[in-house]
């Protein structure tokens, strides 16, 4: 008997009912901003943010996710999980074609997994538990896992598993295939033109498998390198959509007061960007747990949220963001308490040794935040020296562990096994990677809990394991958690239905329409 049956169609119809509250209008062009310019648009080869934002319109995954991270139909119309949690069967939509007219089949799904295992670091680890993939017919794909893997149903969105056309890539050198310059997907929009340094143009896929979709005719992604210039481009009406992070935060209140401008923090639930300070657990004052706890008490994180981030986001309670699975708020609390921080520093035997603070070189907002934290730490007597660098330097310094305290933020991908454990388990301590256990925290109990949590089945069995892990981590403070970030998406209010899923504008503009 199948224990769990996911009736995605039901969910989809529920969502579309909401969308039907306003009747979509067909036609129109949306001008959006993309920054920085993507290095390429072939999602199987390039996984950075701008690539996904543009190519999320061209490529598709098997599933999409609601803001509550429930799976929704994508290229798969339904799916089910076997009772032992080791077999996942997906039924694909029929009548789907690639942009070049060839049919999309289960063979493309199996090929995509093999492709991505070679080129996509996340897919490599997400599908490590897959023992065998079967494709009994053109519209059925069966994943047989070696053991249950709790987050498995959460690894099928377009960024994690974009479908790659087998007929174009099979037997070729993926990296040099000429088709990389003219990406072919199944998505609602097709690649049309890319004038490097200026714009990327996508046009409507006339053969899209959902009748009437997409509503828009074209999308222009404008490449504007300066944040102030991007704000002006919006202000002067040249662009309609500023995806999260396009403009400096201090510009958002001003822009939001303009006529016909809407701002939303939605569409980041899956990524759940979580910010913290790396604290080098290996050496110096930050190797002392009491010092690390003092850092937590010393920071006025509400000030950072309200002033630097204009009230968007939440103060982080620990390693997991509150929108991802198995989050627990039942952990030790670190409210702003300079007196307590001072007492802990005394207990830690801190004697004013110099501590290097590395800001994240992602623009003015992050620079201001670093200055605020520096002031907080100095107020309790920590001798802070700010070390500035560019992005390449920041990558180098953090991944080579050449820092004492360093700002960062990381995506959590909806599940602690996908985006949280990598920061804390000792098997992830390895130089040369700015997104693993950079702080050098090692705790056998945490290693065991995260290992158990990933494979526990059913899903409810995972919760107590992660609850315990979160409690231990928050007490140990391997890193100093800052905020659950929300990057505001700023649009003209007549751009409707832009954000409908947990990855927001990264899921393409399939449902978006313009109210003229």
């Amino acid at each position, binding site marked *: 008997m199948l224990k769990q049956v996911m009736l995605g169609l039901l969910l989809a119809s529920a969502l579309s009912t909401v969308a039907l509250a306003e009747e979509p209008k067909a036609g129109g062009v949306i001008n959006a901003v993309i920054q920085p310019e993507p290095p390429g648009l072939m999602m199987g080869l390039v996984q950075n943010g701008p690539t996904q934002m543009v190519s999320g319109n061209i490529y598709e995954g098997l599933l999409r996710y609601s803001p509550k991270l429930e799976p929704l139909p994508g290229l798969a119309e339904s799916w089910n999980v076997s009772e032992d949690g080791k077999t996942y069967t997906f039924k694909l939509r029929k009548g789907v074609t690639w942009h070049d007219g060839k049919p999309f089949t289960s063979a493309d799904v199996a090929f995509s997994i093999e492709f991505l295992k070679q*080129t996509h670091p996340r897919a490599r680890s997400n599908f490590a538990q897959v023992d065998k993939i079967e494709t009994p017919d053109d519209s059925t794909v069966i994943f047989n896992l070696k053991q249950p893997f709790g987050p498995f149903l959460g690894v099928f969105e377009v960024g994690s598993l974009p479908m790659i056309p087998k007929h174009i890539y099979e037997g070729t050198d993926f990296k040099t295939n000429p088709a990389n310059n003219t990406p072919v997907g199944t998505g609602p929009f097709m690649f049309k033109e890319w004038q490097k340094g200026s714009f990327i143009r996508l046009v409507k896929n006339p053969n899209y498998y959902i009748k009437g979709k997409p509503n828009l005719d074209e999308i222009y992604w404008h490449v504007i390198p300066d944040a102030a210039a991007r704000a002006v481009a919006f202000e002067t009406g040249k662009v309609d959509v500023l995806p999260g992070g396009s403009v400096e935060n201090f510009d958002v209140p001003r822009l939001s007061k303009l006529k016909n401008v809407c701002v939303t923090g939605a569409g980041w639930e899956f990524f759940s960007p979580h910010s913290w300070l790396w604290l080098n657990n290996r050496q110096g004052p930050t190797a002392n747990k009491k010092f690390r706890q003092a850092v937590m008490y010393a920071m006025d994180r509400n000030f950072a949220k309200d002033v630097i981030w204009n009230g968007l986001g939440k103060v982080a309670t620990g390693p997991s963001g509150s929108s991802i699975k198995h989050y627990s708020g039942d952990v030790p609390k670190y409210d702003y308490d300079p007196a307590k921080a001072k007492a802990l520093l005394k207990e830690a035997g801190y004697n004013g040794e110099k501590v290097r603070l590395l800001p994240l070189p992602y623009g003015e907002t992050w620079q201001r935040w670093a200055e605020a934290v520096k002031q907080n730490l100095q107020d309790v007597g920590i001798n802070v020296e700010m070390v500035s660098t560019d992005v390449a330097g920041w990558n180098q310094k953090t991944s080579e562990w050449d820092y004492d305290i360093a700002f960062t933020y990381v995506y959590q991908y909806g599940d602690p096994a996908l985006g949280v454990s990598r920061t804390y388990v000792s098997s992830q301590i390895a130089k040369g990677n700015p997104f693993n256990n950079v702080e050098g925290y090692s705790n056998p109990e945490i290693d065991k809990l995260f290992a158990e949590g990933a494979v526990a089945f059913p899903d409810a069995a995972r919760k107590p394991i992660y609850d315990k892990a979160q409690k231990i981590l928050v007490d140990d403070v391997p890193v100093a958690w800052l905020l659950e970030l929300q990057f505001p998406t700023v649009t003209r209010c007549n751009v409707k239905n832009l954000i409908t899923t947990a990855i927001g504008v990264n899921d393409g503009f399939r449902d978006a329409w313009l109210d003229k």
Partner: protein
Amino acid sequence: MLAFIAQRLAKAVVVLLAIVVLNFMLIRMAPGDPAMVMAGEAGVSDKIFVEQLREKFGLDQPLPVQLYRYVKGIVTLDLGFSFRQQMPVARLIGERLPATLLLTGTAFVISLLFGVIFGTLAARFAGTWADTAITILALIFYATPLFWISLMAILLFSVTMEWLPSFGYETVGANYTGLAHVLDVGAHLILPATTIGLFFMATYARMTRASMLEVKRHDFVKTARAKGLRDAVIQRRHVLRNALLPVVTLAGLQAGTLVGGAVLTETVFAWPGIGRLMYEALLQRDYNLLLGVFVVCSAMVLAFNLITDLIYRSVDPRIEFAS
């Protein structure tokens, strides 16, 4: 004269190679590499991913091997492949060069023309209110940072008055042709070209004024006046021509930077040119692209130094070419 040019060209090749080697080493001394930057942008990384990128970019080879490969490429006019943009560097530079030349060329003409005119006027009316006004304005334009002038120009002419576009090379999606296209590009060009032009215009004005005032004191100017020549003729034929040498030197320097000299302006105005390409290549540690831009810029500087020397000769026939 031909011997002089040949000798200078031979020296230029040596200088260019030295520049290539020096830049190659300097860039690699900066922290981080393109593989790390791209892994960083992906938000997730593992050892295989970074190693694959390094292998793909040839960064897994020892430095002398990388240098040998690069110099060998340069000798055969191959500027290599851009890691980030996934295109041959020469093609990338070729694509962006027209936009940059249009921008900096326009700025060059604006600045030289108006700079010399204002400088001449200031010298002609030295000590009057016109001289004071020109001198003060020149000082302001000379001293104000370019990016600030750019932002203020956008605020005034794009946001407040809505006269001119604030970014880009043309109106995307408008598909203008013929005269409409020329006018569209022209409208996009006005703000960035004027912004760059203001700084150099100020410099030319100040230099022309100072130089002309100095030349005016010479005896041959008094002689010209004693001969009964009209003032305009004296100013143009005797004073201005003799005062132009330092201006030519400066113009030569500015012309040398035509290719790579608009980094800030191109970034603020999203102008798709070489300067922006260089800025982005630097941030992304796109070694080949950055070196390629440096090579082209260096070649331009060397070429314009030579051209400047040749122009000296025509401006001042007393100068002779020594071989």
